[in-house]
């Protein structure tokens, strides 16, 4: 190896296998989740496991962590066969899985969470002194400067993640499996996490890292294993890791035009905010314009006020000052109904909590926003029109579902996101606000969503999208607005766009500093 990561004492994996997966297969009725998958993990190695949604990553991780058991194949730890038939068994072998949705008790403090279920006790009473002392030790290990008595719910997601890692370390984990750990972290928190992960590697802990963000995989991974359709699709060593190679392995074909940006002439101003003040950051006045056929990126760190700005533009949290104009007419947006009336739509950040009716049918989700427009007299449903719209959207967005009557919960993340999009496209919005439209969905679905955004822009829709993925911001936008702590810090035209320029503004610099 002898790569560039020398400062952290990176150890080459090959040669000292800690964990070995041999010909592991797993079937569910009707689907082959894993087929004779091989995988090796060295001591003190950071291994990234990549693949589209449904490629088998999660199943493999669940098998390693004892959540599910394999149908066939063997697991070796230090060269000896091991059975991972329960989470307890996996933990006793030192394998811990940190779920994407963290498993912390938000109402308890940090120390209690770290020792949940195995509290040190004296004569049957919880020894809170010991908890404090021991918790502090593990918090120091991950470099988290919070008091063990802090309630976990009061911490940021990034810090909660650190608590999870501290918890894993407290059971002497030798293998840490992390499933999309950065999906809800700010850039700064992610940086801190990477530092901790590299620190763990230096101490000989192995990390299996799952992420859809190829940039961070490139930064972190010693090796990449790619799964496709439940089989090994290939492997890349540190010096071989490039964006193109990873994508190609994942989808099994070249993606020549990942972002298909074509220059367009922007049309009339559709939406304009003047001196707008959101209730979350009332001290800052925000002015912006969205023109027809324009894709505007809204960049910034997590907590910069981007989501809050979209919420105000959509009437969810009404403005405390300033005005919004659509087509030159002032619009008072007191709730989403006001925004929808003038053709503004919002794809929210959290599709399960805010976007979907999970227990309702795909068709009912798709028609939810347009029901009212299409209703018959006296509020009766227009079922024919509803069927038409659903068919149209399922075709147009290539939503993979067994039928329109399928419950939305059972769709994959990418297809769920397409359903949320379809709900609004059925209403033919003129301004589309999108908050992290590709979070947690696989590469294929991402590309389809990018293509769709392009198509909408060509049709004259004005699009304002928030994204924490730099590549996406750079690839999709005609223009980027950058926010920093509630303030609109600057604007970058496509020709001025660079990662550095965006980051400078996002961290509080100015456009001129960047130039």
């Amino acid at each position, binding site marked *: 190896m002898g790569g560039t990561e020398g400062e952290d004492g990176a150890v080459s994996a090959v040669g000292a296998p800690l964990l070995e997966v041999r010909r592991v297969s797993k079937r*569910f009725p009707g689907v082959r989740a894993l087929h004779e998958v091989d995988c090796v993990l060295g001591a003190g190695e950071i291994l990234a496991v990549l693949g589209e949604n449904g490629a088998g990553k999660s199943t493999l991780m669940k098998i390693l962590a004892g959540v599910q058991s394999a149908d066939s194949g063997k697991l070796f730890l230090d060269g000896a066969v091991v059975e991972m038939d329960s989470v307890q068994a996996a933990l006793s072998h030192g394998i811990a899985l940190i779920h994407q949705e963290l498993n912390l008790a938000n109402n308890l403090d940090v120390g209690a969470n770290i020792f949940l279920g195995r509290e040190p006790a004296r004569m049957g009473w919880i020894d809170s002194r010991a908890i404090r002392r021991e918790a502090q030790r593990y918090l120091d290990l991950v470099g988290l400067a919070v008091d063990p008595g802090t309630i976990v719910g009061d911490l940021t997601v990034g810090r909660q993640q650190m608590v999870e890692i501290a918890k894993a370390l407290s059971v002497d984990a030798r293998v840490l499996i992390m499933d999309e750990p950065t999906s809800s972290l700010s850039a700064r928190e992610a940086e801190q996490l990477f530092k901790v992960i590299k620190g763990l590697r230096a101490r000989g802990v192995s990390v299996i890292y799952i992420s859809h963000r190829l940039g961070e995989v490139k930064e972190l991974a010693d090796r990449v294993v790619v799964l496709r359709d439940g089989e090994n699709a290939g492997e890349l060593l540190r010096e071989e890791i490039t964006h193109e190679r990873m994508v190609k392995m994942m989808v099994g074909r070249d993606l020549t035009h990942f972002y298909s940006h074509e220059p367009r002439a922007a049309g009339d101003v559709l939406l304009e905010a003047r001196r707008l003040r959101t209730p979350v950051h009332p001290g800052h006045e925000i002015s912006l314009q969205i023109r027809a056929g324009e894709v505007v990126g809204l960049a910034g760190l997590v907590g910069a006020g981007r989501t809050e700005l979209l919420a105000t533009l959509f009437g969810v949290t009404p403005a405390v000052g300033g005005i919004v104009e659509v087509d030159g007419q002032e619009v008072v947006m007191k709730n*989403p109904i006001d925004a929808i009336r003038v053709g503004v739509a919002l794809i*929210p950040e959290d599709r399960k909590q805010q*976007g979907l*009716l*999970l227990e*309702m049918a795909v068709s009912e989700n798709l028609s939810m*926003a347009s029901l009212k427009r299409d209703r018959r007299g006296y509020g009766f*449903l227009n079922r024919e029109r509803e069927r038409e719209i659903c068919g149209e959207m399922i075709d147009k967005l290539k939503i993979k579902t067994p039928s329109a009557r399928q419950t939305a919960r*059972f769709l994959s993340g990418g297809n769920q996101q397409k359903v949320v999009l379809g709900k609004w496209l059925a209403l033919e919005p003129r301004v589309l606000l999108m908050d992290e439209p590709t979070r947690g969905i696989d590469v294929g679905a991402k590309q389809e969503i990018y293509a769709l955004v392009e198509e909408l822009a060509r049709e004259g829709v004005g699009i304002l999208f928030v994204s924490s993925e730099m590549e996406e911001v750079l690839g999709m936008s005609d223009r980027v607005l950058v926010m920093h702590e509630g303030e609109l810090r600057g604007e970058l035209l496509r020709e001025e766009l660079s990662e550095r320029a965006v980051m400078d503004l996002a961290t509080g610099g100015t456009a001129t500093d960047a130039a």
Partner: protein
Amino acid sequence: MKKILGILGLLVFIYLATWLFSDLLTGRDSFLKGYTQMNLLRRTSLFAIISIGVAFVIISGGIDLSIGSVICLIGVGFPWLLSTFDWPAWVALPVVLVVGGVIGIWHGFLVTKVRLQPFVVTLCGLLIYRGLTRGITADQKQGFGTGDHDGLKWLASGELLHLPVPFWILLIVAVAAGVFLNRTIYGRYLLAVGNNEEAAKLSGIDTGRVVMVAYVICSFLAGLGGVLFVLDQGSAQPTSMGNFYELYAIAAAVLGGCSLRGGQGTIVGVVIGAAVMQVLRQSIILIDWISPNIEFAFIGMVILAGVTADEIVRRVAARRRLAS
């Protein structure tokens, strides 16, 4: 659909079991005889009407514990207005029904605007309306006195086309409720709000108004139920009128497939659920070895067994579905 078949199966099972133990094994003719069956149908209809009401609130994601007390207020207040103040029935009837609706608006206001929890709002309602009724009537039993109210009483105890009149009233209520829930955008909105209020709001639905409508329907139907119950019984005691009826109604709704998490439920299921409750009560009366003293325990255990079986079936189905 599957859910309705499940609850229908339970109804048939309990019906046949009651027939077996009360008639077949004892050689009597008490359950299947016309009078019993007519009575069963009448009581099922009365309880189904209030169960449909609470089903709307449960589908919206809320709960209404005040139904029994609303039945008491309306059921006692109606004859009180007729006999004490000599109001004509054609004035008193619309007035008490409107009072039911207004109670619903009040609940809806507290839940959607003041943002109190439905459980708390309607628990207080349960206490307030009963106390109010006992206060204004000085705890005196209210009847229809000597006045000629045969026409009114026909609504509850009469027959039309050889079936109890309340059955026809239920039919109208159930069809209207079913059309509202399944064929109008408002019904769809109600399911959406119960399923995920935030997503519904972000889809442009006026969620507050939808929830409000659910409470109005619930209290209005409880009021209608109160009128029919008192007409059926001839008089009403402020202390006992409608006691525990909210629990019968909620149990029927839950048995009928309404999830207390909201967003799910069918009118047909709720009606069948109400029927299950009434057949169970009938079986306690007719089957010798079930002591009337354990009525609540018996009903509780049968419902628990029913929903447990349902949950297990659903989990197995979900597992199969996830795996495929």
